[in-house]
């Protein structure tokens, strides 16, 4: 079985314990953070394992790339701690289980991984998406969502086969529509020593390249947008500058606000699933108020899950919800 590459020695010499000190959902003083970190590193129980809302953020906060969040998830599972009620976890594991009968698909042009979002297939059309072949389905689902459910074992079991399924399509590169898929192949798989025989390409990079090819069609949009940064970006924060470049290309102003960049707030979906409704309500409220205070008129999503969870809410608050690829389509004069 694949083991997490986690180095307790790094923590021993770490002075800031950023992984815990910067947590937006659990408060620590440095002494407590160090004690709990030591506990975790000895494989002992800690209140962190119970109070963690699985926002993925500590993975970004650790400057040493030491995978503190993946370690938390492994420990939660090992100790039988359930961040989410058991029936929800069990049903989700069943719901997205691979069919196990994957037929390699002939890929023409760019392989475009739609993950488990078939409803968005029709929106992946137009100039920017010419010469792409969409791949989707349970046998290609990244499964990373089980991090929220303390079920890394399911990811470990499924991801190697999913990678094989993609590879069997003969692809060199895989554009990921879902941020979390990209994070799976770029962060999670390497952290567990799982080889990825193709190059994952982030949607932002793909859009930048395609927009550049269609530069003459771009009309700067001039919108002020609030960006809803998804949890999976915590695993691949290196994609942030790509988004800035993308926004610049299409003439969109990402308004500076309290809950963006290193301090975004969760969309609340996973908190609701784990029974923390009040917390979800509270952070949604704070988040949307912050978007409005910052003067945004649109809320841009990169994660389809966040879009489903918050789209209606932001619309009711007077902000237009839009996915980033749709925003790019608008910029070249296409309808969304």
């Amino acid at each position, binding site marked *: 079985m694949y083991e997490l590459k986690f180095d307790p020695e790094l923590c021993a010499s770490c002075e800031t314990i950023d992984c815990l000190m910067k947590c937006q959902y659990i408060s620590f003083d440095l002494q407590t953070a160090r004690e709990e970190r030591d506990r975790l590193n000895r494989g002992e129980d800690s209140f962190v394992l119970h109070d963690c809302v699985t926002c993925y953020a500590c993975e970004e906060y650790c400057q040493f790339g030491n995978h503190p969040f993946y370690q938390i998830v492994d420990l939660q599972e090992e100790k039988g701690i*359930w961040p*989410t*009620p*058991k*029936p*929800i976890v*069990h*049903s*989700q594991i*069943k*719901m997205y*289980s691979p069919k196990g009968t994957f037929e390699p698909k002939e890929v023409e042009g760019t392989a475009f991984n739609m993950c488990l979002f078939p409803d968005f297939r029709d929106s992946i059309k137009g100039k920017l998406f010419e010469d792409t072949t969409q791949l989707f389905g349970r046998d290609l689902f990244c499964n990373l969502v089980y991090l929220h459910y303390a079920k890394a074992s399911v990811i470990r079991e499924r991801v190697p086969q999913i990678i094989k399924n993609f590879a069997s399509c003969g692809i060199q590169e895989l554009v990921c529509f879902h941020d979390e898929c990209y994070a799976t192949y770029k962060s999670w798989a390497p952290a567990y020593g799982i080889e990825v025989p193709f190059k994952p390409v982030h949607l932002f990079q793909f859009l930048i390249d395609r927009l550049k090819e269609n530069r003459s069609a771009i009309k700067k949009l001039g919108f002020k947008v609030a960006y809803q940064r998804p949890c999976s970006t915590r695993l691949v924060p290196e994609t942030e500058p790509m988004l800035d470049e993308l926004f610049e290309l299409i003439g969109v102003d990402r308004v500076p606000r309290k809950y963006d960049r290193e301090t975004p707030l969760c969309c609340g*979906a*996973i908190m*609701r*699933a*784990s*029974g923390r*409704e009040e917390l979800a309500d509270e952070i949604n409220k704070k988040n949307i108020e912050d978007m409005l205070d910052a003067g945004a008129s649109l809320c841009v999503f990169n994660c389809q899950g966040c879009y*489903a*969870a918050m*789209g*209606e809410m932001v619309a009711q608050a007077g902000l237009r919800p839009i996915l980033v690829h749709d925003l790019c389509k608008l910029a070249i004069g296409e309808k969304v």
Partner: protein
Amino acid sequence: MDRVYNALKEIVGERFVSNQQEELYLYSRDPGTMDPVWPDYVVMPASTEEVQKIVMLANQEKIPLVPQGGGLVLSGLTIPLKGGILVDMKRMNRIIEVNKNSRYVIVEAGCSHGLLQSYLNQNYPDLRHSLPDSPPISTVGGNVCIHGSGHLSQVYGFHSDMVNGMEVVLPTGEICKIGSCSTSPYWFARAPLPDLAGLFLGWFGTTGIMTKISLKLYPHKRMKDVMLFLTENPEYISDIIYKVTDTEVAEDITISCAPKPDWMDGFQLTSIAIVGRNKAELDFKFRTIRSALASYIDSREGGFMYMPPAMKHNFTEVPLRSTARFADVKKGGGFEYVGAIMPVDKFPDAYRAGHEIAQRCETTYSLSARIIGRAHCMMFSCAYAFNRADKADVDRAKQALHETNKAVLELGGIPWKAEFPAQQLILERMDPNTLRLMEQVRKLMDPNGIMNPGNWEVK
């Protein structure tokens, strides 16, 4: 027999009577497992007076009469077991009066639920009636005749409990009013008079033909939401229902435990509808129900399924189309279910028996329950879909229905809108004095034995 045909033609006009095979064929069967029996005539009256004349004719000719609304009861109760005249009530679909402030509507018995729903939506958006999940063509009369239930039953009881009064053509031809309308111009209640509605409600058209019905209406709060509580232990359900109904803020409560889709197998999904005039009311109800079930969430034994707002429609629409979709899952148009009316604490036993029987009989099945009243009882449904063109499939469903009916009675429940064989199982167990009373009532009301004969009679 042409004499009967001609007399019927005289009553309703040529267009609305038939003795043609291709038309009788349609009325000889329903989507369930009961074998077809052909009526001799089918007639579609347009008024109480026409119904009265048909009843008098049937008495004169000593020929059976079987009333039919939408014909969707599924358990053969509108199959004319002894032939005769099938009275199709669908032309009597007028909405006669809405009394807004007293919250009732008077409809003709053949008025469909779909028609009433859209009429109220258009003209009285603040009012609604309780809808069953049957296809919209099912009728108000047919539904109250069988003690139907629906989206407001958790709050207000069976649909027959929502009847204020009615006009009936007795088996001997008299037009009779029941409830306040017998004494007053208003159709507001069955009290304070002796309650004669029990002579017709739940009698499956064996004691007369309802022609008008006053149905209670209820406030229509426009904002809706649904809370989906998932468990994987049927033993928890009656406690969950007790806790949720104790809050008195939930509307419809159903529990679905279907083996399909695969990911649902082994789980129980309790769907709790809530409504409100505004978001604050909805939020309050949401919080109240959530805290009622906090112990399950804290112990991680149950949890609310997260559902993005856009997907909630599948659970909040009325009627729910998913039931009708399952009904045709085998594409052969065959569908029947044992709807067991039973105490809620029998849920785990019914759940186990339902799965066990369906699996043993190798039928396509689905299990679900709807709570009636504040958990006063439930309608536990073991539904079987089959292909009517495939005899082996029909036989498997028949066998499963039979075994389910027996199991339900063993558990202390009673099969609802029972088909003929299940009626016999019920009658066998019934207190002999009750049985005798039923027989005496029927004989007294219907001396010629013309009303839906064969049904609810001791073999």
